[in-house]
């Protein structure tokens, strides 16, 4: 292959890896928004906690990859449900601003709680054997393959759950109308808890994969990634699951490709200008429609 194509393919792979992780986190933002029309700003920090669960499982329990991933997902899911029950549920009928401020507060609490326990950045041991394949000049690592495939797998699973199962139907119904749907026997609190559990569980999975790909973790790692995932969700049309995935791959792709073909100093400036233009053209995001189907 010519060098130009090799370079382009390599950067595409890089973009897919970054986009997959943004997508897993963006799903949590979009699902919670879909159900409660609330932006859960603590979500980036739930992702960080997921990475720390991965650290605990891998280092202190010495678990291999699969149980570590499971433990991080379950741990994050429980955390997500607990946060909803303790911090958001009492404010469900309060002004929306109060809930957002609470979410910010929960995020800061999680960061500083972790900081108090683990002030030093932590190193994640390699849980998977690293193999790097060289395909005609393009380097493809086993980790990259696992991250991309696992993320896509989880996304298809979620899409199936939301669109093809009774629970998913209940979620979509509640996002449509919170006043009358519960009267028809749909358990509101349970469905909201399930939504938070799924969103946070995916963030836990993202945290684990992120920690494996970038094996130095610290309590502030969730802030920037969380913002970017939130932006992905908005670009894709917040409240729309497929939109969040598309938005995440667009953001990952734009970030990588701008660096690839412009001086890297222009990355954020060019990338976010492009995203703002996109929002100007489609104010509700790519798949978002004003007041129609959500989650």
């Amino acid at each position: 292959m010519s060098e130009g194509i090799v370079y382009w393919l390599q950067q595409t792979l890089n973009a897919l890896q970054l986009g997959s992780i943004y997508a897993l986190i963006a799903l949590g933002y979009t699902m919670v928004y879909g159900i409660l029309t609330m932006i859960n700003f603590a979500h980036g920090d739930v992702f960080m906690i997921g990475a720390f669960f991965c650290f605990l499982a891998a280092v202190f329990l010495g678990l291999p990859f699969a149980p570590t991933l499971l433990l991080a997902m379950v741990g994050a899911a429980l955390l997500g449900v607990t946060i909803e029950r303790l911090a958001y549920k009492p404010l469900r009928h309060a002004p929306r601003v109060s809930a957002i401020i609470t979410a910010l507060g929960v995020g800061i609490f999680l960061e500083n709680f972790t900081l108090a326990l683990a002030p030093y950045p932590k190193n994640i041991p390699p849980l998977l054997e690293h193999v790097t394949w060289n395909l005609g000049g393009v380097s493809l690592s086993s980790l990259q393959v696992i991250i991309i495939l696992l993320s896509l797998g989880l996304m298809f699973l979620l899409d199936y759950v939301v669109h093809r199962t009774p629970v998913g139907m209940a979620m979509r119904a509640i996002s449509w109308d919170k006043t009358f749907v519960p009267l028809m026997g749909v358990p509101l609190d349970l469905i909201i808890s399930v939504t938070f559990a799924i969103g946070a569980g995916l963030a836990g999975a993202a945290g684990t994969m992120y920690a494996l790909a970038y094996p130095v973790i610290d309590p502030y790692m969730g802030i920037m990634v969380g913002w970017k995932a939130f932006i992905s969700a908005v670009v894709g049309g917040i409240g729309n699951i497929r939109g969040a995935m598309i938005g995440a791959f667009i953001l990952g792709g734009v970030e990588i490709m701008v660096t690839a073909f412009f001086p890297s100093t222009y990355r954020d400036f060019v990338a976010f200008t492009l995203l703002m233009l996109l929002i100007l053209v489609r104010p509700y995001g790519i798949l978002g429609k004003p007041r129609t189907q959500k989650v």
Partner: protein
Amino acid sequence: MRKALSLLLFSVLVSLGVTAWGAGKTIKLGVIAELTGDMPAVGTSCKNAAEMAVKEVNAAGGLQVGKEKMKVELVVEDNAGKADQSAAAAQKLITQDAVLAIVGPNASRYAIPASEIAESEKTVLITPWSTNPKTTLDATTNKPKKYVFRACFIDPFQGGVLAKFALENLKAKKAAVLYDVASDYNKGIAEVFKANYEKLGGKIVAFETYTTNDKDFSAQLTKIKDAKPDVIFLPNYYSEVPLQVQQAKRLGITAPFIGSDSWGSNELLTLGGADLNGYYFSTHYAADNAAPVAKKFIADYEKAYGTKPDDVAALTYDAFGLLFDSIQSAGKADREAVRAALATLPTYKGVTGDMKFQADSRDPIKSAVILQIKDGKFAYYTNANP
């Protein structure tokens, strides 16, 4: 009522008396350290070395200031790895705690804002580890600040040393640089390296940037791989370097890496492991090739904290040494007098080598060493001057 009032008055007088007495017998020195945030290892080393230096002086009876012996009291502030909190900590130490002088912060991006406060409040500040020239220079006039000193060499010196090392020792004709464009230290040294390397006949084939807190460097590293450098320079902090090296290896990059003194924390070895084996970086001193003064410091530090002192610890210890000497030669606990004494101090033999401040500079003259990472340890490789 009258009784209560007089009692109150009495207690106020007593407490006033106690403070006045306390101020007469002890000297308060402030430390601003990165105890939390993105480089806690740096802050911890700084705090440890500061406490050790003060303990030693107090165990010897205190400092001889004029005719009396004065004990030293340490006030340690955490800047949380933030620029604004560094400035706030300096303000608090100077106005609220009324310290005589301040040591720290260490990273240039925190030392620069803190130094502005120290300068405007006319209080001596010595930064142990900040190598960016701007720390001791006035931003508007570009002349040396009056009250801000440092215990280390500066980036133009270090960048020159590394450029020469890459060309002459590593025989690398083409170099790539990846650095944090949002951090004063990284940006400064990257630019100096580039200028010196090109001046000496080398070619910079890629000059790539990222911003603080980035974890994914795949796009920049793919670009660097495409440029086929002989050596890659990473003037970045110890928590980021392992990620950059690991990702580079995963992308199939085989060129060696070199770094600057920001690599010199034992945490680098914990976080990076075997991936960093064989690479070189420039720093302030080598624990395994130290002068007798340093040997004692290293042994004491290891005994007290169970780990080898890194360069931040050594430089903090030297900063306190400089400060103690200048307080004693000033002969009084007065901010102006201490500043004047420090600026004109004769050659100081410190843990990190001999240092002396020149007449119109707050940066000491000293040399650098190159260390190699070998089997999970920092090993002395060579002395270096540009």
